[in-house]
Protein backbone atom coordinates (compact mmCIF):
# COMPACT_ATOMS: atom_id res chain seq x y z
CA UNK A 1 0.00 0.00 0.00
CA UNK A 2 1.15 3.47 -0.82
CA UNK A 3 2.26 5.68 2.06
CA UNK A 4 0.29 8.94 2.00
CA UNK A 5 1.70 10.53 5.12
CA UNK A 6 4.92 9.71 6.91
CA UNK A 7 5.58 11.29 10.27
CA UNK A 8 9.18 10.98 11.38
CA UNK A 9 10.54 11.57 14.86
CA UNK A 10 8.15 14.44 15.46
CA UNK A 11 7.99 16.48 18.66
CA UNK A 12 5.87 19.45 19.56
CA UNK A 13 5.46 21.63 22.61
CA UNK A 14 3.36 24.63 23.55
CA UNK A 15 5.97 26.77 25.31
CA UNK A 16 7.53 24.55 27.96
CA UNK A 17 4.92 21.83 28.06
CA UNK A 18 5.69 18.98 25.70
CA UNK A 19 2.57 17.71 23.99
CA UNK A 20 4.06 15.17 21.57
CA UNK A 21 7.38 13.35 21.78
CA UNK A 22 9.16 11.29 19.13
CA UNK A 23 6.13 10.40 17.09
CA UNK A 24 6.70 7.97 14.24
CA UNK A 25 3.67 7.09 12.24
CA UNK A 26 2.72 6.07 8.73
CA UNK A 27 -0.64 6.56 7.04
CA UNK A 28 -1.30 4.28 4.06
CA UNK A 29 -3.84 4.77 1.30
CA UNK A 30 -7.43 3.80 2.30
CA UNK A 31 -6.46 3.44 5.95
CA UNK A 32 -9.16 4.22 8.49
CA UNK A 33 -7.22 5.15 11.56
CA UNK A 34 -8.66 5.79 15.01
CA UNK A 35 -6.55 8.26 16.94
CA UNK A 36 -7.42 7.36 20.51
CA UNK A 37 -6.30 8.95 23.74
CA UNK A 38 -7.32 11.05 26.72
CA UNK A 39 -8.27 14.72 26.42
CA UNK A 40 -5.10 16.78 26.31
CA UNK A 41 -3.14 13.76 25.08
CA UNK A 42 -2.21 15.44 21.77
CA UNK A 43 -4.78 14.09 19.28
CA UNK A 44 -5.92 17.52 18.08
CA UNK A 45 -2.29 18.66 17.97
CA UNK A 46 -1.35 15.82 15.59
CA UNK A 47 -4.23 16.75 13.27
CA UNK A 48 -3.27 20.43 13.38
CA UNK A 49 0.35 19.54 12.56
CA UNK A 50 -0.71 17.45 9.57
CA UNK A 51 -3.00 20.17 8.27
CA UNK A 52 -0.34 22.87 8.73
CA UNK A 53 -1.95 24.94 11.49
CA UNK A 54 1.04 24.16 13.73
CA UNK A 55 4.70 23.65 12.87
CA UNK A 56 6.66 20.82 14.51
CA UNK A 57 9.59 21.68 16.83
CA UNK A 58 11.49 18.61 15.66
CA UNK A 59 10.97 15.98 13.01
CA UNK A 60 9.19 15.96 9.69
CA UNK A 61 5.83 15.23 8.11
CA UNK A 62 6.08 14.01 4.53
CA UNK A 63 3.02 14.01 2.31
CA UNK A 64 2.78 12.03 -0.86
CA UNK A 65 -0.49 12.51 -2.70
CA UNK A 66 -1.49 11.14 -6.09
CA UNK A 67 -2.98 14.10 -7.92
CA UNK A 68 -1.32 17.30 -9.00
CA UNK A 69 -3.53 19.34 -6.68
CA UNK A 70 -1.85 21.52 -4.10
CA UNK A 71 -1.71 20.36 -0.47
CA UNK A 72 -4.69 22.23 0.87
CA UNK A 73 -7.04 20.52 -1.60
CA UNK A 74 -5.77 17.04 -0.73
CA UNK A 75 -6.58 17.26 2.95
CA UNK A 76 -10.16 17.61 4.17
CA UNK A 77 -10.04 18.95 7.72
CA UNK A 78 -13.07 18.60 9.98
CA UNK A 79 -12.40 20.47 13.24
CA UNK A 80 -14.56 20.45 16.36
CA UNK A 81 -17.26 23.04 15.93
CA UNK A 82 -16.34 24.69 19.21
CA UNK A 83 -13.51 26.35 17.30
CA UNK A 84 -16.00 28.35 15.23
CA UNK A 85 -17.55 31.68 16.14
CA UNK A 86 -20.85 30.83 17.85
CA UNK A 87 -24.05 32.50 16.66
CA UNK A 88 -22.50 33.68 13.40
CA UNK A 89 -25.05 34.59 10.70
CA UNK A 90 -24.04 32.14 7.97
CA UNK A 91 -26.08 29.74 5.85
CA UNK A 92 -25.21 26.08 5.40
CA UNK A 93 -24.34 26.60 1.75
CA UNK A 94 -21.88 29.35 2.64
CA UNK A 95 -20.19 27.16 5.22
CA UNK A 96 -19.79 24.37 2.66
CA UNK A 97 -18.49 26.94 0.15
CA UNK A 98 -15.51 27.61 2.42
CA UNK A 99 -14.15 24.32 1.11
CA UNK A 100 -13.56 25.79 -2.37
CA UNK A 101 -12.20 29.13 -1.24
CA UNK A 102 -8.55 30.11 -1.50
CA UNK A 103 -6.35 33.19 -1.25
CA UNK A 104 -7.66 34.52 -4.56
CA UNK A 105 -11.38 34.09 -3.81
CA UNK A 106 -12.57 37.62 -4.45
CA UNK A 107 -16.09 39.11 -4.68
CA UNK A 108 -19.14 37.80 -2.82
CA UNK A 109 -20.40 35.34 -5.42
CA UNK A 110 -19.24 31.86 -6.57
CA UNK A 111 -18.61 30.79 -10.15
CA UNK A 112 -20.53 28.00 -11.87
CA UNK A 113 -17.86 25.35 -11.31
CA UNK A 114 -17.71 26.15 -7.61
CA UNK A 115 -21.49 26.03 -7.39
CA UNK A 116 -21.63 22.56 -8.92
CA UNK A 117 -19.00 21.25 -6.50
CA UNK A 118 -20.82 22.77 -3.51
CA UNK A 119 -24.19 21.28 -4.53
CA UNK A 120 -22.67 17.86 -5.16
CA UNK A 121 -20.91 17.81 -1.83
CA UNK A 122 -24.12 18.69 0.02
CA UNK A 123 -25.90 15.88 -1.85
CA UNK A 124 -23.19 13.40 -0.90
CA UNK A 125 -23.86 13.87 2.79
CA UNK A 126 -27.65 14.40 2.36
CA UNK A 127 -27.93 18.00 3.51
CA UNK A 128 -29.15 19.60 0.25
CA UNK A 129 -32.47 20.51 1.88
CA UNK A 130 -30.63 22.49 4.58
CA UNK A 131 -28.76 24.66 2.06
CA UNK A 132 -30.50 27.94 3.00
CA UNK A 133 -30.81 27.23 6.73
CA UNK A 134 -28.70 29.11 9.24
CA UNK A 135 -25.79 27.02 10.55
CA UNK A 136 -26.66 27.98 14.17
CA UNK A 137 -30.08 26.41 13.96
CA UNK A 138 -28.77 22.94 13.15
CA UNK A 139 -28.46 20.00 15.55
CA UNK A 140 -25.01 18.66 16.42
CA UNK A 141 -25.32 15.82 13.93
CA UNK A 142 -26.41 18.13 11.11
CA UNK A 143 -23.56 20.55 11.85
CA UNK A 144 -21.12 17.67 11.65
CA UNK A 145 -22.48 16.69 8.25
CA UNK A 146 -22.08 20.28 7.05
CA UNK A 147 -18.44 20.25 8.12
CA UNK A 148 -17.89 16.93 6.36
CA UNK A 149 -19.47 18.40 3.22
CA UNK A 150 -17.16 21.41 3.52
CA UNK A 151 -14.16 19.09 3.69
CA UNK A 152 -15.39 17.03 0.71
CA UNK A 153 -15.84 19.96 -1.68
CA UNK A 154 -12.20 19.96 -2.76
CA UNK A 155 -12.33 16.18 -3.29
CA UNK A 156 -9.45 15.45 -0.89
CA UNK A 157 -7.59 12.15 -0.65
CA UNK A 158 -7.60 12.15 3.12
CA UNK A 159 -10.11 13.26 5.75
CA UNK A 160 -9.01 14.35 9.22
CA UNK A 161 -11.81 14.40 11.80
CA UNK A 162 -11.45 15.80 15.30
CA UNK A 163 -13.94 14.23 17.75
CA UNK A 164 -16.75 14.27 15.17
CA UNK A 165 -19.30 12.77 17.52
CA UNK A 166 -18.55 14.63 20.75
CA UNK A 167 -21.76 16.68 20.68
CA UNK A 168 -23.96 14.37 18.68
CA UNK A 169 -26.70 12.04 19.93
CA UNK A 170 -26.05 8.33 19.56
CA UNK A 171 -28.35 7.67 16.57
CA UNK A 172 -26.71 10.48 14.55
CA UNK A 173 -23.38 9.14 15.75
CA UNK A 174 -24.07 5.83 14.01
CA UNK A 175 -25.27 7.67 10.88
CA UNK A 176 -22.02 9.61 10.76
CA UNK A 177 -19.94 6.43 11.16
CA UNK A 178 -21.90 4.77 8.36
CA UNK A 179 -21.31 7.81 6.15
CA UNK A 180 -17.59 7.72 6.92
CA UNK A 181 -17.49 3.99 6.23
CA UNK A 182 -18.81 4.65 2.72
CA UNK A 183 -16.38 7.51 2.20
CA UNK A 184 -13.57 5.16 3.23
CA UNK A 185 -14.09 3.23 -0.03
CA UNK A 186 -12.36 6.09 -1.78
CA UNK A 187 -10.69 8.12 0.91
CA UNK A 188 -8.21 7.66 3.69
CA UNK A 189 -9.55 8.68 7.10
CA UNK A 190 -7.96 9.66 10.40
CA UNK A 191 -10.45 10.12 13.19
CA UNK A 192 -9.57 11.43 16.65
CA UNK A 193 -11.72 10.26 19.52
CA UNK A 194 -11.36 9.98 23.27
CA UNK A 195 -13.12 6.65 23.38
CA UNK A 196 -13.03 3.60 21.20
CA UNK A 197 -16.78 3.13 21.47
CA UNK A 198 -18.45 2.54 18.13
CA UNK A 199 -15.42 3.15 15.97
CA UNK A 200 -13.56 -0.04 16.82
CA UNK A 201 -15.75 -1.92 14.36
CA UNK A 202 -15.00 0.46 11.47
CA UNK A 203 -11.30 1.26 11.74
CA UNK A 204 -8.43 -0.86 10.45
CA UNK A 205 -5.74 0.67 12.63
CA UNK A 206 -5.66 2.35 15.97
CA UNK A 207 -3.07 4.85 17.13
CA UNK A 208 -2.96 5.47 20.86
CA UNK A 209 -1.81 9.01 21.60
CA UNK A 210 -0.76 10.27 24.98
CA UNK A 211 2.38 12.35 24.38
CA UNK A 212 3.77 9.27 22.61
CA UNK A 213 2.10 7.27 19.92
CA UNK A 214 1.67 3.52 19.68
CA UNK A 215 0.01 2.09 16.59
CA UNK A 216 -1.76 -1.26 16.30
CA UNK A 217 -3.55 -3.08 13.55
CA UNK A 218 -7.11 -3.92 14.51
CA UNK A 219 -7.40 -7.64 15.07
CA UNK A 220 -3.88 -7.91 16.43
CA UNK A 221 -4.84 -6.61 19.81
CA UNK A 222 -7.71 -6.53 22.25
CA UNK A 223 -9.40 -3.26 23.13
CA UNK A 224 -8.01 -3.69 26.61
CA UNK A 225 -4.42 -3.38 25.34
CA UNK A 226 -5.39 -0.28 23.35
CA UNK A 227 -6.98 1.44 26.30
CA UNK A 228 -3.95 0.58 28.44
CA UNK A 229 -1.60 2.02 25.81
CA UNK A 230 -3.62 5.13 25.40
CA UNK A 231 -4.32 5.87 29.01
CA UNK A 232 -1.09 4.48 30.49
CA UNK A 233 -2.93 2.19 32.91
CA UNK A 234 -4.52 5.21 34.49
CA UNK A 235 -7.96 3.71 34.06
CA UNK A 236 -9.34 0.66 35.76
CA UNK A 237 -10.89 -1.74 33.33
CA UNK A 238 -13.72 -3.79 34.68
CA UNK A 239 -14.65 -6.78 32.58
CA UNK A 240 -18.23 -7.58 33.30
CA UNK A 241 -21.42 -8.89 31.91
CA UNK A 242 -24.33 -6.76 32.88
CA UNK A 243 -26.81 -9.54 32.26
CA UNK A 244 -29.54 -7.38 30.77
Amino acid sequence: MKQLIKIDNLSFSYGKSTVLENINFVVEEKDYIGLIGPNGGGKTTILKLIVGLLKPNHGTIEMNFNGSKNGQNNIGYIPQFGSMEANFPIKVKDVVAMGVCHSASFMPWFNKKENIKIEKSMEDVSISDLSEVSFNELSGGQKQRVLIARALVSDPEILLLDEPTSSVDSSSELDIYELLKNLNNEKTIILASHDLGFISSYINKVACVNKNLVAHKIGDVSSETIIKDAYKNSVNMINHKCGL
Partner: protein
Amino acid sequence: MSDFITNIFEQQFLQNAIIAGLLSSIACGMTGTFVVVKRISYVGGGIAHAVMGGIGAAFYWNINPLYGALIFAVISGLLIGLVRLKLKENEDTIISALWSIGMAIGIILAYLTPGYNVDLITFLFGNILLVDSQSILILLVVDVVIISFTFIFFRQIIYTSFDKEYAFVRGIKVDIIYYLMLIMVALTVVILVQTVGLILVISLLTLPSAIARIFSNSVLKMIIVSVLLVSVFIISGIYFSFSFNIPAGATIILVAGMVYFLTLLASYFRILSK
Protein backbone atom coordinates in the same frame (compact mmCIF):
# COMPACT_ATOMS: atom_id res chain seq x y z
CA MET B 1 -42.34 67.84 8.24
CA SER B 2 -43.16 69.75 5.05
CA ASP B 3 -41.23 72.69 6.50
CA PHE B 4 -38.20 70.40 6.79
CA ILE B 5 -38.54 69.19 3.22
CA THR B 6 -38.88 72.73 1.86
CA ASN B 7 -35.77 73.69 3.79
CA ILE B 8 -33.81 70.78 2.32
CA PHE B 9 -34.35 72.28 -1.12
CA GLU B 10 -33.50 75.78 -0.01
CA GLN B 11 -30.69 75.36 2.51
CA GLN B 12 -27.27 74.25 1.33
CA PHE B 13 -26.23 73.10 4.83
CA LEU B 14 -29.21 70.72 5.10
CA GLN B 15 -28.42 69.25 1.70
CA ASN B 16 -24.81 68.75 2.75
CA ALA B 17 -25.92 67.16 5.99
CA ILE B 18 -28.21 64.69 4.22
CA ILE B 19 -25.58 63.76 1.62
CA ALA B 20 -22.99 63.29 4.38
CA GLY B 21 -25.53 61.22 6.31
CA LEU B 22 -26.22 58.90 3.38
CA LEU B 23 -22.51 58.52 2.63
CA SER B 24 -21.84 57.73 6.29
CA SER B 25 -24.56 55.11 6.39
CA ILE B 26 -22.94 53.05 3.61
CA ALA B 27 -19.56 52.87 5.35
CA CYS B 28 -21.12 52.47 8.77
CA GLY B 29 -23.51 49.68 7.76
CA MET B 30 -20.77 47.67 6.04
CA THR B 31 -18.03 48.04 8.63
CA GLY B 32 -20.48 47.94 11.54
CA THR B 33 -21.67 44.52 10.39
CA PHE B 34 -18.12 43.14 10.44
CA VAL B 35 -17.50 44.78 13.81
CA VAL B 36 -20.59 43.12 15.29
CA VAL B 37 -20.03 39.62 13.89
CA LYS B 38 -16.31 39.70 14.76
CA ARG B 39 -17.08 41.29 18.16
CA ILE B 40 -14.53 44.09 17.97
CA SER B 41 -16.67 47.09 18.90
CA TYR B 42 -14.15 48.13 21.57
CA VAL B 43 -11.58 48.48 18.73
CA GLY B 44 -13.92 51.06 17.21
CA GLY B 45 -14.21 52.87 20.55
CA GLY B 46 -10.43 52.93 21.00
CA ILE B 47 -9.69 54.21 17.52
CA ALA B 48 -12.42 56.86 17.81
CA HIS B 49 -10.84 58.38 20.90
CA ALA B 50 -7.27 58.02 19.61
CA VAL B 51 -8.36 60.13 16.63
CA MET B 52 -8.59 63.11 18.98
CA GLY B 53 -4.78 63.26 18.95
CA GLY B 54 -4.81 63.63 15.18
CA ILE B 55 -7.44 66.34 15.32
CA GLY B 56 -5.43 68.28 17.91
CA ALA B 57 -2.29 67.93 15.80
CA ALA B 58 -4.18 69.14 12.72
CA PHE B 59 -5.35 72.25 14.61
CA TYR B 60 -1.83 72.88 15.84
CA TRP B 61 -0.25 72.66 12.40
CA ASN B 62 -3.28 74.24 10.74
CA ILE B 63 -4.28 71.49 8.30
CA ASN B 64 -7.73 69.98 7.66
CA PRO B 65 -8.63 68.09 10.87
CA LEU B 66 -9.99 65.17 8.82
CA TYR B 67 -6.47 64.42 7.54
CA GLY B 68 -5.11 64.40 11.08
CA ALA B 69 -7.96 62.12 12.12
CA LEU B 70 -7.36 59.79 9.17
CA ILE B 71 -3.64 59.36 9.93
CA PHE B 72 -4.17 58.74 13.64
CA ALA B 73 -7.03 56.34 13.00
CA VAL B 74 -5.11 54.16 10.56
CA ILE B 75 -1.96 54.12 12.75
CA SER B 76 -3.98 53.14 15.83
CA GLY B 77 -5.75 50.40 13.88
CA LEU B 78 -2.46 48.94 12.67
CA LEU B 79 -0.92 49.14 16.16
CA ILE B 80 -3.86 47.21 17.62
CA GLY B 81 -3.37 44.56 14.94
CA LEU B 82 0.39 44.34 15.57
CA VAL B 83 -0.05 43.86 19.30
CA ARG B 84 -2.65 41.16 18.73
CA LEU B 85 -0.87 39.22 16.00
CA LYS B 86 2.84 39.71 16.69
CA LEU B 87 2.95 39.97 20.47
CA LYS B 88 0.02 37.55 20.86
CA GLU B 89 -1.40 39.79 23.57
CA ASN B 90 -5.03 40.66 24.07
CA GLU B 91 -5.93 43.96 22.49
CA ASP B 92 -7.66 45.50 25.49
CA THR B 93 -4.59 47.06 27.10
CA ILE B 94 -3.26 48.64 23.90
CA ILE B 95 -6.78 49.85 23.08
CA SER B 96 -7.14 51.53 26.47
CA ALA B 97 -3.68 53.07 26.09
CA LEU B 98 -4.41 54.45 22.60
CA TRP B 99 -7.82 55.61 23.79
CA SER B 100 -6.47 57.88 26.51
CA ILE B 101 -3.09 58.81 25.00
CA GLY B 102 -4.82 60.04 21.85
CA MET B 103 -7.20 62.14 23.94
CA ALA B 104 -4.27 63.52 25.97
CA ILE B 105 -2.30 64.53 22.87
CA GLY B 106 -5.42 66.16 21.43
CA ILE B 107 -6.18 68.13 24.58
CA ILE B 108 -2.60 69.44 24.95
CA LEU B 109 -2.18 70.41 21.27
CA ALA B 110 -5.60 72.06 21.17
CA TYR B 111 -4.72 73.97 24.36
CA LEU B 112 -1.52 75.22 22.73
CA THR B 113 -3.46 76.41 19.67
CA PRO B 114 -5.29 79.64 20.51
CA GLY B 115 -8.97 79.95 19.66
CA TYR B 116 -9.71 76.35 18.66
CA ASN B 117 -11.55 75.10 21.73
CA VAL B 118 -14.98 75.55 20.20
CA ASP B 119 -14.02 73.51 17.13
CA LEU B 120 -12.75 70.75 19.36
CA ILE B 121 -16.21 70.38 20.86
CA THR B 122 -17.55 69.91 17.33
CA PHE B 123 -15.37 66.85 16.90
CA LEU B 124 -16.17 65.46 20.34
CA PHE B 125 -19.91 65.61 19.75
CA GLY B 126 -19.99 65.94 15.97
CA ASN B 127 -22.11 68.29 13.96
CA ILE B 128 -23.39 66.96 10.72
CA LEU B 129 -25.10 70.31 10.06
CA LEU B 130 -21.68 71.96 9.66
CA VAL B 131 -20.26 69.53 7.06
CA ASP B 132 -18.78 71.44 4.11
CA SER B 133 -18.36 70.28 0.52
CA GLN B 134 -14.66 69.51 0.93
CA SER B 135 -15.50 67.08 3.75
CA ILE B 136 -18.17 65.50 1.57
CA LEU B 137 -15.54 64.84 -1.07
CA ILE B 138 -13.30 63.14 1.51
CA LEU B 139 -16.30 61.10 2.72
CA LEU B 140 -16.97 60.01 -0.85
CA VAL B 141 -13.39 58.83 -1.39
CA VAL B 142 -13.32 56.93 1.91
CA ASP B 143 -16.69 55.36 1.06
CA VAL B 144 -15.40 54.13 -2.29
CA VAL B 145 -12.41 52.55 -0.55
CA ILE B 146 -14.61 50.79 2.03
CA ILE B 147 -17.11 49.56 -0.56
CA SER B 148 -14.30 48.18 -2.73
CA PHE B 149 -12.65 46.41 0.23
CA THR B 150 -15.98 44.91 1.25
CA PHE B 151 -16.81 43.64 -2.23
CA ILE B 152 -13.40 42.29 -3.13
CA PHE B 153 -12.66 40.58 0.17
CA PHE B 154 -16.26 39.75 1.15
CA ARG B 155 -15.86 35.97 1.36
CA GLN B 156 -12.42 36.10 2.89
CA ILE B 157 -13.59 38.49 5.62
CA ILE B 158 -16.62 36.34 6.43
CA TYR B 159 -14.68 33.08 6.47
CA THR B 160 -11.91 34.56 8.60
CA SER B 161 -14.47 35.90 11.08
CA PHE B 162 -16.46 32.66 11.21
CA ASP B 163 -13.68 30.07 11.36
CA LYS B 164 -10.20 31.55 11.31
CA GLU B 165 -8.34 28.23 11.47
CA TYR B 166 -10.17 26.70 8.55
CA ALA B 167 -9.75 29.89 6.54
CA PHE B 168 -6.01 29.63 7.22
CA VAL B 169 -5.97 25.98 6.15
CA ARG B 170 -7.64 27.02 2.88
CA GLY B 171 -4.78 29.42 2.20
CA ILE B 172 -6.49 32.70 3.10
CA LYS B 173 -4.06 35.27 4.52
CA VAL B 174 -5.99 35.65 7.76
CA ASP B 175 -3.59 38.19 9.29
CA ILE B 176 -3.81 40.49 6.29
CA ILE B 177 -7.60 40.21 6.38
CA TYR B 178 -7.54 41.20 10.07
CA TYR B 179 -5.43 44.28 9.30
CA LEU B 180 -7.80 45.11 6.47
CA MET B 181 -10.76 44.97 8.84
CA LEU B 182 -8.95 47.26 11.29
CA ILE B 183 -8.26 49.76 8.50
CA MET B 184 -11.93 49.64 7.50
CA VAL B 185 -12.90 50.36 11.11
CA ALA B 186 -10.38 53.23 11.21
CA LEU B 187 -11.75 54.79 8.00
CA THR B 188 -15.34 54.42 9.15
CA VAL B 189 -14.55 56.00 12.49
CA VAL B 190 -13.17 59.06 10.69
CA ILE B 191 -16.38 59.34 8.68
CA LEU B 192 -18.53 59.02 11.79
CA VAL B 193 -16.53 61.55 13.80
CA GLN B 194 -18.02 64.13 11.42
CA THR B 195 -21.52 62.82 11.88
CA VAL B 196 -21.94 62.00 15.56
CA GLY B 197 -18.60 62.97 17.11
CA LEU B 198 -15.89 60.72 18.44
CA ILE B 199 -17.53 60.05 21.81
CA LEU B 200 -20.66 58.61 20.20
CA VAL B 201 -19.04 56.72 17.29
CA ILE B 202 -19.18 53.35 19.02
CA SER B 203 -23.00 53.41 19.20
CA LEU B 204 -23.56 54.17 15.55
CA LEU B 205 -20.98 51.56 14.60
CA THR B 206 -22.65 48.77 16.58
CA LEU B 207 -26.35 49.43 17.30
CA PRO B 208 -27.71 49.33 13.70
CA SER B 209 -25.84 46.12 12.89
CA ALA B 210 -26.85 44.57 16.20
CA ILE B 211 -30.49 45.29 15.29
CA ALA B 212 -29.93 43.91 11.78
CA ARG B 213 -28.38 40.77 13.29
CA ILE B 214 -31.72 39.85 14.85
CA PHE B 215 -33.45 39.77 11.45
CA SER B 216 -30.68 38.32 9.28
CA ASN B 217 -29.38 34.84 8.57
CA SER B 218 -26.52 36.03 6.38
CA VAL B 219 -23.88 38.73 6.55
CA LEU B 220 -25.00 40.18 3.22
CA LYS B 221 -28.56 40.67 4.48
CA MET B 222 -27.16 42.15 7.68
CA ILE B 223 -25.16 44.70 5.69
CA ILE B 224 -28.18 45.77 3.62
CA VAL B 225 -30.43 46.13 6.68
CA SER B 226 -27.68 48.00 8.59
CA VAL B 227 -27.10 50.52 5.80
CA LEU B 228 -30.85 51.21 5.61
CA LEU B 229 -31.14 51.54 9.39
CA VAL B 230 -28.18 53.93 9.69
CA SER B 231 -29.58 56.18 6.98
CA VAL B 232 -33.00 56.23 8.65
CA PHE B 233 -31.39 57.02 12.03
CA ILE B 234 -29.23 59.82 10.62
CA ILE B 235 -31.97 61.46 8.54
CA SER B 236 -34.50 61.31 11.36
CA GLY B 237 -31.82 62.61 13.75
CA ILE B 238 -31.21 65.57 11.44
CA TYR B 239 -34.96 66.15 11.25
CA PHE B 240 -35.47 66.18 15.04
CA SER B 241 -32.34 68.25 15.54
CA PHE B 242 -33.54 70.79 12.98
CA SER B 243 -37.12 70.88 14.28
CA PHE B 244 -36.37 71.15 18.00
CA ASN B 245 -33.02 72.91 17.71
CA ILE B 246 -31.08 70.26 19.63
CA PRO B 247 -27.61 68.75 18.84
CA ALA B 248 -27.74 66.46 15.79
CA GLY B 249 -25.14 63.84 16.84
CA ALA B 250 -26.74 63.13 20.20
CA THR B 251 -30.21 63.02 18.62
CA ILE B 252 -29.08 60.46 16.02
CA ILE B 253 -27.67 58.23 18.77
CA LEU B 254 -30.86 58.54 20.85
CA VAL B 255 -32.99 57.47 17.89
CA ALA B 256 -30.67 54.48 17.26
CA GLY B 257 -30.63 53.59 20.97
CA MET B 258 -34.40 53.71 21.27
CA VAL B 259 -34.93 51.48 18.23
CA TYR B 260 -32.28 49.07 19.57
CA PHE B 261 -33.99 48.65 22.93
CA LEU B 262 -37.43 48.36 21.34
CA THR B 263 -36.10 45.60 19.06
CA LEU B 264 -34.55 43.81 22.03
CA LEU B 265 -37.85 44.02 23.87
CA ALA B 266 -39.76 42.75 20.82
CA SER B 267 -37.42 39.80 20.32
CA TYR B 268 -37.65 39.01 24.05
CA PHE B 269 -41.44 38.80 23.81
CA ARG B 270 -41.14 36.75 20.63
CA ILE B 271 -39.02 34.21 22.49
CA LEU B 272 -41.48 34.21 25.42
CA SER B 273 -44.45 33.57 23.14
CA LYS B 274 -42.77 30.61 21.43
